[in-house]
């Protein structure tokens, strides 16, 4: 898996990467929201010199750069320093190719809810947020609902009411019909 290989190469060089954004949603929903690129942020504070990044990606026969590469037919983006307000840990999947860290599912939920309603209500973004809520409500993607509630109330998101309404909507849709 490409995310594992990229994570391992950078980790061995001293930088911890985290899968973020829509790419994280792909992990949590098992590809329900998918595109041809993988977005990473850097968890390690120390910046990655661009030449170093190029040399590391060269190990994978990547083309392009210095912040976006094509590798094995997919695109890898390195977006900068991780922004993560969650108190819950990043999720870790240990693959045969390397461990992958993914932004906490709680952050993914709240970010998707924010995108669903702001800057203006967006049907596509709402559908993604509902997928994310569905896997969480089902328990297939475990989350801390108290942390989701806390994050949604933060001024950085301020999306508590919208998220709770969307959560209820998804819960109704998940309920088996009599």
């Amino acid at each position, binding site marked *: 898996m490409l995310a594992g290989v990229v994570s391992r190469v950078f980790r061995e060089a001293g930088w911890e990467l985290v899968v973020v954004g829509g790419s994280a949603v792909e992990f949590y929903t098992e590809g329900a929201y*998918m*595109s041809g690129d993988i977005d990473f942020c850097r968890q390690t504070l120390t910046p990655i010199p661009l030449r170093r990044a190029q040399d590391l990606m060269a190990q994978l026969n990547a083309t392009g750069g210095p912040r976006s590469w094509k590798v094995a037919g997919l*695109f890898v983006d390195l977006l900068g320093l991780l922004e993560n307000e969650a108190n*819950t840990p990043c999720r870790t999947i240990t*693959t045969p190719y390397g461990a992958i860290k993914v932004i906490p599912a709680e952050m993914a939920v709240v970010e998707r809810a924010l995108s669903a309603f702001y800057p203006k209500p967006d049907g596509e973004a709402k559908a993604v947020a509902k*997928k994310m809520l*569905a896997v969480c409500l089902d328990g*297939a*993607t*475990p989350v801390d609902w108290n942390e989701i509630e806390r994050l949604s109330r933060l001024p950085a998101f301020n999306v508590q009411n919208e998220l709770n309404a969307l959560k209820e909507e998804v819960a109704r849709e998940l309920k088996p019909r009599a």
Partner: protein
Amino acid sequence: MNSNRALKTEWTWDEWQQSRAARRAAADKIGPAIVRRKESSSDRRLRPAFKGERGPDFNPA
């Protein structure tokens, strides 16, 4: 939905593979199987690479 239970945050590859079907099934309960943005700033590179689409064909493992 119980937040008090220990939160699982780490998966072995086997655990992750075994739990894929459950995640997919849960996601499939809401809306179409795949939700893909119609457009984004990445279109210029994605569409030529994936036969006019924004990503590869969805092929559940």
